[in-house]
């Protein structure tokens, strides 16, 4: 697939931290509606890749394309306006605000902050509550984000990302630190998302990866060492050597 016809594509992406090359010529393209998993051992460059995709880090070289248009080096908030949303690995929430207000802030981003009408109008509250119900937080709407459990905070993270009505959703270890029950709940939730949505997911739980992903890209020391369907990747000798062998045997 050409980079122009992809929902998300990176081409020769590099990122250096001092002498360390965290991303070393990464190229891949994700089709519209595809579920793409990015896997690899710790330090492979997965989170750096996400930070470059969202504009939080500038690449040292290479290009990023969103919907066929070059967006390399574009500011984070502009990329968000273009339909890129991210669920953070470490929760990035508005702690003293209620779960509902957290979602409302995400909903309000589309029309911008320069409105003097009172916050919390009926339609917005209803929309926020619908999203909270969708991620399983219906009865927590009034509680401050800081009062939620770790798993619930992950659910709220997802609600915020969905509230942005994204076209491309980046999920950075959505099940990290979750109980088995919470993990299967959120995996089911992700599996049910609209097929028009393009999803990139970084995840260490291989059950989740093989359940969700259409294709898998394997990163190792900043390079793509494999890129293909789940079965293809599972059978790849190099991938098994550097990563899967260790993960799956455990």
């Amino acid at each position, binding site marked *: 697939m050409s980079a122009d016809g992809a929902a998300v594509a990176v081409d020769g992406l590099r990122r250096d931290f001092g002498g360390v090359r965290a991303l070393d010529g990464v190229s891949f393209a994700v089709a519209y509606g595809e579920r793409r998993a990015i896997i690899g051992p710790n330090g492979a460059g997965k989170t750096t890749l996400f930070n470059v995709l*969202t504009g*939080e880090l500038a690449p040292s070289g290479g290009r990023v394309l969103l919907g066929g248009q070059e967006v390399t080096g574009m*500011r*984070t*908030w502009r990329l*968000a*306006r273009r339909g890129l*949303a*991210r669920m*953070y690995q470490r929760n*990035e*929430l*508005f*702690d*003293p*605000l209620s779960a509902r*207000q957290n979602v*409302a*802030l*995400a909903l*309000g*981003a*589309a029309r*911008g*902050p*320069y*409105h*003097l*009408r*009172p*916050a919390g109008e009926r339609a917005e509250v209803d929309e926020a509550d619908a999203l909270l119900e969708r991620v399983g937080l219906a009865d927590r709407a009034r509680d401050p984000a800081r009062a939620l459990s770790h798993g619930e905070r992950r659910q709220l993270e997802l609600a*915020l990302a969905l509230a*942005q009505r994204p076209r491309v959703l980046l999920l950075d270890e959505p099940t990290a630190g979750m109980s088995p029950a919470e993990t299967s709940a959120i995996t089911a939730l992700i599996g049910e998302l609209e097929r028009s949505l393009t999803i990139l997911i970084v995840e260490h739980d291989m059950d989740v990866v093989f359940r969700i992903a259409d294709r898998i890209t394997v990163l190792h020391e900043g390079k793509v060492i494999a890129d293909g369907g789940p079965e293809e990747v599972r059978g790849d000798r190099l991938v098994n050597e550097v990563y899967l062998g260790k993960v799956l045997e455990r």
Partner: protein
Amino acid sequence: MTRPTKASLSRGPRVRRWAPPFAGAAALVALFTFPDWSASMEGSRYASTILRDMLVFAVYALSLDVLIGRAGMPSLGHAAFFGGGAYAAAIAAERLGTDELAVTLGAAVVVAAALALVIGALTVRAAGIFFLMLTLAFAQMAFAIAFQWTDLTGGSNGFAGVRRPVLLGLDLSPPDSIYRLVVVVFGIVALVVWWIARSEYGRALVGVRENERRMRALGYDTTRLKLSAFVLAGSLAGVAGALSAWSFRFVSPNDVGLGTSVTGFVMVLIGGAGTLLGPILGAGLVLYIERVLSSAIPYSQTVLGIVFIVFVLAARQGLVGVAVQVWTRVRR
């Protein structure tokens, strides 16, 4: 346990919703008519002068709290806009040949807003302690200009004999008139700040305070948002500066100086940042210690320092925070 009746359920929230605005309006009326109903009391004139000055600084503290309390931007250079507004009101009245309120107050707001736009554009990208030091540095530059541009500002002698404004031909220079002007402007500024705090704009400022990174990821241009808050706060500080110039009939480089910046900071923190009542109470308490207590006891500045330390160490949420804690404990 008895179940609440329908009537009590519906009355509770309504009372709670309307009580604060009603109390606020009543307080404003009481303040506005203070010279009338206190006329027979001893020291009425003195008391209204103190009240006037408290309200001038309440406006100033309210403006600073838009930055500190709402947007989480700890500015230590807010005096630049207070002093800028004060000089602008004084100089406009002298040079433009009119004392009309709209013109002189307008000059104060425009000058303060322009200053805030320039300083804000150069500082709002910095966060925390860096923002604090940068705003301090720029305010010191403003101080140097006020100090050295003697032709315009009177330099170190200050600008004495500031002309008080006229409202559509009505002379506001008598003490009671300027007092009432201060009350009205204070009321308007408090209303503006209250409205902003509950608006979508105010909610976005809180979002920036709590997690700027996430705000950017959601699609908010946080740099522009913070700059808008900086200009808004600067403009309101300019209003406070004009009120100060008219009240004291005097403007000096001190109004632009570090002392005035710190005073605003102390007022906000003692009163309670991020609340409407906090900065008002903080301004009242600081002025009370500086003006009233200072004639009764020695070392009133030391008292102020100790009060500040106690609040920073033991009551981070300020007077309002303490009151809320006491109230919730009493109700339980």
